[in-house]
């Protein structure tokens, strides 16, 4: 699959300005906006963490998982369970992430042996297994009622410092800090030799094997990291909403990770983060007009897949490149906006080229 991020050019001056501006806006926002806006932005950040982890699998490794909601759900439920017994936000979040990563290890062991369609279907099925457990195991998970009354416990650094995060604004800053750390770590992962190997696997499994990359181990590790990120997003949800229900682990919520990533674009590192902003904004706007916001999302997905596989952000960037930059300079051929079809070689060869199982 050639849909993943292109080899990253060094962050240009323009990009740095954009990132800096985004950070400034995020820092200033709580002082100039309503609690509801802050609440929405918290959701954007959680969704960004969730989708960025997903894109490590999809965009970078070439594995389409439809089971990410399972890890989101486990992160949320374990965090909720800890907070209900032991009021420490840090313990809850770390516990949620660890549990999600552990389950991702098990499901990953069973799933990454398979690629492509089988992988997608397996992650979907195992994800629904987690959903059915959360739904049926009433004694522990509260069944379809879920867990309620989860406290927004203070941030307790093992007795060294205690920071209360009861208000939405203080929780906002906590989530912002977590998001920045998560983004930084993932950025480092993506640009490490490991991250480059993942992209190598995506582009050609066979060639990666030839140069000595342990494909399955790499995939498993990517799967665990993606699971941990989903778990982190879920763990943040529990104290935010003070309730968790099984719906968050249903496969349609796995679809949200896919939607968000597709909206923002799989080819850029920050694509899913942009997608998260777009997703929440679109949903907020559409539900004001009609209850059928899924219909609108579905149409957007179909249009994106048919015409703009690089995502909305990419489409805007390409349009900018094509019409403004190139228009002002000389008329150079435009940057290709779409994923190209595989070259017309023999089918078997094309299959090997794309790194499929023989």
């Amino acid at each position, binding site marked *: *699959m050639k*849909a993943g991020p292109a080899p990253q050019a060094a962050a240009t001056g323009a990009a740095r300005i954009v990132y800096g501006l985004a950070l400034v806006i995020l820092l200033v926002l709580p002082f100039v906006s309503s609690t509801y806006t802050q609440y929405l932005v918290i959701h954007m950040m959680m969704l960004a963490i969730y989708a960025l982890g997903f894109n490590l699998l*999809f965009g970078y490794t*070439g594995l*389409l998982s*439809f089971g990410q909601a399972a890890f989101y759900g486990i992160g949320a439920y374990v965090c909720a369970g800890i907070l209900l017994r032991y009021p420490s936000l840090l313990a809850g979040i770390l516990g949620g992430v660890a549990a999600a990563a552990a389950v991702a290890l098990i499901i990953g062991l*069973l799933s990454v*042996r*398979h690629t*492509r*369609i*089988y992988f*997608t*279907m*397996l992650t*979907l*099925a*195992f994800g*629904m*297994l987690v959903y*059915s*457990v959360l739904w*049926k*195991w009433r004694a522990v998970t509260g069944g379809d009622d879920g867990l309620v009354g989860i406290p927004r416990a203070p941030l307790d650094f093992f007795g060294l410092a205690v920071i209360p995060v009861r208000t939405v604004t203080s929780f906002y800053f906590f989530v912002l800090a977590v998001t920045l750390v998560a983004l930084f770590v993932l950025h480092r992962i993506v640009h490490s030799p490991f991250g480059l190997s993942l992209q190598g696997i995506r582009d050609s499994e066979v060639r990666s094997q030839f140069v000595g990359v342990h494909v399955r181990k790499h995939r498993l590790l990517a799967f665990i990291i993606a699971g941990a990120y989903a778990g982190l997003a879920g763990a943040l949800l529990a104290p935010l909403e003070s309730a968790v229900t099984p719906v968050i682990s249903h*496969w*349609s919520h796995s*679809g949200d990770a*896919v939607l968000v990533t*597709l909206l923002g674009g799989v080819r850029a590192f920050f694509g899913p983060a942009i997608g998260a902003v777009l997703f929440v904004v679109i949903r907020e706007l559409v539900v004001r007009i009609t209850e*059928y*916001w*899924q*219909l609108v*999302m*579905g*149409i*957007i*997905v*179909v249009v994106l*897949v*048919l015409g703009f*596989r690089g995502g909305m952000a990419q489409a805007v960037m390409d349009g900018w490149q094509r019409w403004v930059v190139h228009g002002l300079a000389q008329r150079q051929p435009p940057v290709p906006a779409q*994923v190209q*079809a*595989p070259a017309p070689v023999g*089918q078997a060869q094309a*299959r090997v080229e*794309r790194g*499929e*199982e*023989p």
Partner: protein
Amino acid sequence: MSFQVLLYQGLVGLSSAMYLWLLSAGLTIVFGVLGVLNFAHGAFFMIGAYLAYTFYGILGFNLAVSIALSLVGTAVIGVLVERFLVKPIMHLDHAFQLLLTFGLVLIFDDLAKAIWGGVFMIPPMPRVFQGAVWILGTPFPIYNLFVIGAGVAVWLLLWLLFEKTWWGRIVRATAADPQMAAALGVDVKRLYTGVFALGVMLAALGGALGTPVRVVAPGMGSFMIVQAFIVTVLGGLGSLTGAFVGALLVGVLSSYGTLLFPTVELALIYLIMAVVLLVRPHGLFGRARA
């Protein structure tokens, strides 16, 4: 637990396996020939059920006529989807086909909600199918037996179609090597549309057959597609026999599961799927392919 109860539950499982089989058959045929995994296949199951409900439950048509009309209606939608949405992205990675059809799931689910509203009542059973047959001292509803018969009949018909007819041979040749088939004068594009329509009609038949016994609701497709995925993964993608055996396995097991250990019923099926895939990575009847 008496023998009667176990027997009854087994027959119930068999009949519910048939809906699953019809759905999975379409999924696996379309994948086997076009190489497209259709996420929206469950949505066609739902459309089939809604159309049949509309003709039978609301307009008061004969059940057979209602099912036939629902198949035609669903096929029309399927052909449009194939022509205008699936065809342009067929050459792309499987991931994009899944994404596009996932978008269709969202669209169809909301459209169904908009057109038909919430959950429906189950319309009355046609007179022919009222009553029960006694099997080994156990009363068994005629309609369930009819569904079992219909499922097996479809299996036989599909086998005849693909193995014994001219068209079936062309389809198999195209599935094996589309370029060669095209070179030999097969209109591959048209064939793909035909096969897609066939797959969609099988899904619709599964949905429509359930009209007098199963509740029609938006989102039923999303539930069924996960089951169908399990069935086809179990049986092996692209294998009709695999889909049939997989559907029987899942249908009967979940039927006994609900009776004997209701809390872990679903988990049991996933467990079996995991074990099968560990032992046979391409499913029970699957061959290694992309």
